[in-house]
């Protein structure tokens, strides 16, 4: 019957046309892909996951971006943001030409200038700073593929002060905790072998809302294979909705839960004896340490029932070593973050999952020689001792410390380069310091594709072209299989924008440092490097991604045991290094500060449509998610007379009132918390789609909890109240 119905239809259609000759139809558009299609290999820069893909153009017009099937980062599938990458090229608000701050009749403004004028200005100021204060007094704050070019430039000049907010505002605690425990970091892409895990615990990590492609795909694979998923989150995150166990924990009490898990694993003998005996140090101290932290104790702290704590510990233990507690990525929460990450590292050690299938795999990258060029001399001074001596164990530059070091007559930093990182929306509570820094700096250069908040502080703005119009270094990130990926320009740079490699080389030449950049075009570097590993630029232009054989096993085995680059050569459950520096050698739980009467804890996170504030003006992604919402529990909403769709403002304890933000009333957040996605509430003035739209969590943060070990900024002790907007 069904078949007959629609077989008849073409006949009906013909009748329709015959009978309706006077009705005017519309001209249809040609079918997609019916014209002349060209494809160019790219590496996505919409986030740091750096998936490889193909840029498709039809009849010379941008069409779409798809994943490269050979690419392990993406499995041939770009995420929401990567699929919307053409919007980064098409954004009509892009920076168009170099600009210089000028003063006319007492008023400052940015004046469009030629590249020659902008570059000469910067080179002269750099020389001036070198003569007046020393050549080691420039700093670089950076996030993104082209940052290495400016790092090379400043190093060649004699300055080494360098920081990325991805350390102190994001991954720092995880990096330091894993280095302290295992002697190495988790790395990026995260080396979690989730696709093969039988049990996965996420601690506040909302994979699925943060769309790190490989993480989403492997977690999804685990769910499809019925792995046990445990999500620990005060909010009913997307991952919580996929979990066998959702533990709606009291915010900031994760360490109590982790200690209780250790207690159960040890006292019920569920830990990996072989791994603990062969590879770890300090088990006896740990056993003693956790004796009083039973699930009943943790119940009072976390609000989680003891049976649930035991059941989840049993699940973790039962599936070990194909069982892992995910280290998370954005980990700067409460100021005791390194201790929480240490606790995560220790639970994993008890599960014996290091280098094991379903635990943490062994990533490998390609041994890619650097292009022959002179190496910049070693730093003349110990800049870390000068600007961040209070965090001696911090292995990386601390971004807010670098900004603090720009303030005052005696400031260490006299010239600042900011590459593709929008500091005011990235570092909490930095606005005031940034103002003072900008007053005192003798040079501030901002390199970006868009007019962000940070560009407003610059002396000189250099417009970079989007990732779809430039070459960058080959992608060579540690993965399950070593691979290289090429980013090839798909389009000519719009306006007067230029790639980072060109800007850095031009500056170097003006500073007499041209020898450090001995190439005319960056393709020479890429081709030379590729030739050294048996490929070529020509080959990579065709295939985009090349995978190389592994030199080691993906997992450790009895014949191929792990080694650890800690002082003891063991996994340090008890950290002597922490003890030596006066920190807790075993993770200690500190109850979190509570909001107090009338206040809510502001929780923030990611939305799958955006990479922080970098994409909210991207026309494609803007259309998918034009604004963020403030999630309120129905009780909270009723207390304030708010309903979904209304606008409200947050107000923090020192009186800062946020932008109006649209309310979403939902049971997915508890009555004690609020939630919003980060990246909205731009005020730059030049972002026509997103300026003034949505709320900015960053500007509400008045109670930053600095982690004494890493120096990173804990951002989840922000307490706000609500007003109708």
């Amino acid at each position, binding site marked *: 019957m*069904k078949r007959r119905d629609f077989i008849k239809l073409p006949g009906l259609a013909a009748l*329709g046309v015959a009978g309706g000759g006077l*009705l005017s139809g519309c001209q*249809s558009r040609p079918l997609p892909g019916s014209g002349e299609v060209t494809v160019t290999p790219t590496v996505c820069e919409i986030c740091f996951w750096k998936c490889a893909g193909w840029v498709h153009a039809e009849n010379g017009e941008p069409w779409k971006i798809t994943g490269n099937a050979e690419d392990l980062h993406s499995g041939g599938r770009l995420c929401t943001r990567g699929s919307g990458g053409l919007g980064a090229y098409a954004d009509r608000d892009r920076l168009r030409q170099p600009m210089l701050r000028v003063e006319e009749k007492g008023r400052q403004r940015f004046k469009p200038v030629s590249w020659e004028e902008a570059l000469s200005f910067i080179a002269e100021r750099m020389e001036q700073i070198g003569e007046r204060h020393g050549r080691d007094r420039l700093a670089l704050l950076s996030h993104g593929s082209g940052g290495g070019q400016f790092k090379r430039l400043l190093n060649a000049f004699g300055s080494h002060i360098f920081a990325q907010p991805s350390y102190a505002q994001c991954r720092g605690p995880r990096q330091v905790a894993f280095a302290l425990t295992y002697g190495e970091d988790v790395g990026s892409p995260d080396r979690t072998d989730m696709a093969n895990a039988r049990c996965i615990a996420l601690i506040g990590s909302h994979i699925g809302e943060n769309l790190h492609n490989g993480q989403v795909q492997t977690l999804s694979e685990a*769910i499809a294979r019925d792995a046990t998923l445990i999500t620990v989150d005060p909010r009913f995150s997307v991952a919580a909705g*996929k979990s066998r166990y959702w533990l*709606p924990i009291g915010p900031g009490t994760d360490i109590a839960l982790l200690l209780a898990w250790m207690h159960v694993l040890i006292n019920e003998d569920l830990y990996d004896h072989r791994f603990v005996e062969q590879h770890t140090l300090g088990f006896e101290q740990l056993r003693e340490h956790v004796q009083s932290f039973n699930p009943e104790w943790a119940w009072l702290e976390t609000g989680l029932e003891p049976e649930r704590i035991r059941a989840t510990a049993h699940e973790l233990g039962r599936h070990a070593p194909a069982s892992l507690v995910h280290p998370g990525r954005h980990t700067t929460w409460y100021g005791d973050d390194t201790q929480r990450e240490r606790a995560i590292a220790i639970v994993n050690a008890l599960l014996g999952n290091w280098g094991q299938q379903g635990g943490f795999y062994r990533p490998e990258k390609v041994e890619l020689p650097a292009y022959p060029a002179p190496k910049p001399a070693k730093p003349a001074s110990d800049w870390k001792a000068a600007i961040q001596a209070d965090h001696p164990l911090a292995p990386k530059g601390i971004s807010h410390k670098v900004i603090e070091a720009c303030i005052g007559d005696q400031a260490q930093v006299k010239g600042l380069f900011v590459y593709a990182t929008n500091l005011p929306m990235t570092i909490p509570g930095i606005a005031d310091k940034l103002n003072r820094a900008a007053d005192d700096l003798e040079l501030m250069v901002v390199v970006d594709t868009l007019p962000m908040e940070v560009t407003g502080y610059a002396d000189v703005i250099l417009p970079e072209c989007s990732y779809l119009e430039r070459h960058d270094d080959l992608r060579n990130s540690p993965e399950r299989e070593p691979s290289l990926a090429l980013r090839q320009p798909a389009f000519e740079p719009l306006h007067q924008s230029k790639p980072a490699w060109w800007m850095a080389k031009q500056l170097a030449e003006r500073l007499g440092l041209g020898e450090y950049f001995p190439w005319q075009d960056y393709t020479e570097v890429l081709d030379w490097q590729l030739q050294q590993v048996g490929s070529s630029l020509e080959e990579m232009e065709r295939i985009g991604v090349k995978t190389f054989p592994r030199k080691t096993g993906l997992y450790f085995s009895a014949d191929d045991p792990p080694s650890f680059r800690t002082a003891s050569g063991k996994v340090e459950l008890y950290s002597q290094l922490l003890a030596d520096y006066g920190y807790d050698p075993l993770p200690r739980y500190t109850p979190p500060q509570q909001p107090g009467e009338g206040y809510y804890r502001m929780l923030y996170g990611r939305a799958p449509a955006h990479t922080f504030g970098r994409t909210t003006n991207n026309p494609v992604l803007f259309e998918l998610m034009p604004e963020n919402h403030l999630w309120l529990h129905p009780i909270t909403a009723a207390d304030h007379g708010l309903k979904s769709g209304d606008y409200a403002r947050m107000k923090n304890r020192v009186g800062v009132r946020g932008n109006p933000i649209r309310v979403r009333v939902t049971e*997915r957040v508890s*009555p004690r918390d609020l939630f919003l996605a980060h990246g909205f509430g731009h005020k730059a003035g030049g972002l026509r789609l997103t300026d003034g739209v949505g709320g900015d969590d960053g500007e509400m943060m008045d109670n930053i909890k600095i982690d004494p070990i890493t120096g990173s900024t804990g951002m989840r002790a922000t307490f706000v109240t609500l007003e109708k907007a």
Partner: protein
Amino acid sequence: MSHYAMVIDTRLCIGCGDCVVACKSENRTPTGLNRDWVVEQTRGRYPDLTTEFRSERCNHCSHATCVLCCPTGASHHWQGSNIVLVDADRCTGCKACIAACPYDARYITPEGYIDKCTFCHHRVAKGLDPACVATCPTHCMHFGDLDQASSRVAELLGKRDYKTLLSGTGNRPNVYYLT
């Protein structure tokens, strides 16, 4: 003749909207209009909750009310399959189909004709999956011919529980949600 179906695993869908973005760029859908969209449905009270995400679109109904009501024959089933297309050359923009579609899947383009999801028949003709299916990072979407017993879609419907939307309308929708 083929019986094309989309099978979407709600256990895996995270509501990320990649299907929406991939569709928009593949089909150059005008700003402000969408051929597919994501629905989130949360049930229960904190902390006893479930959330279901669904990527929704035209159901390419076997018994398509939009096709039946189209006065010009612009809405038709493609090559005798269940894929419902609109022939813009024949469409007068009368909107009868918009009223007849139980799924609100259709919109009027700035040029004045009606448009909607095509199951990417231009890709299907080349043996490719629709753009949304091909990009989904969770692999929750599947596409294929239900009449082929060996197809992944037939296999999934054979072994998993599923539902369709507004199954009572008699339209015989062909987008299935695994539950």
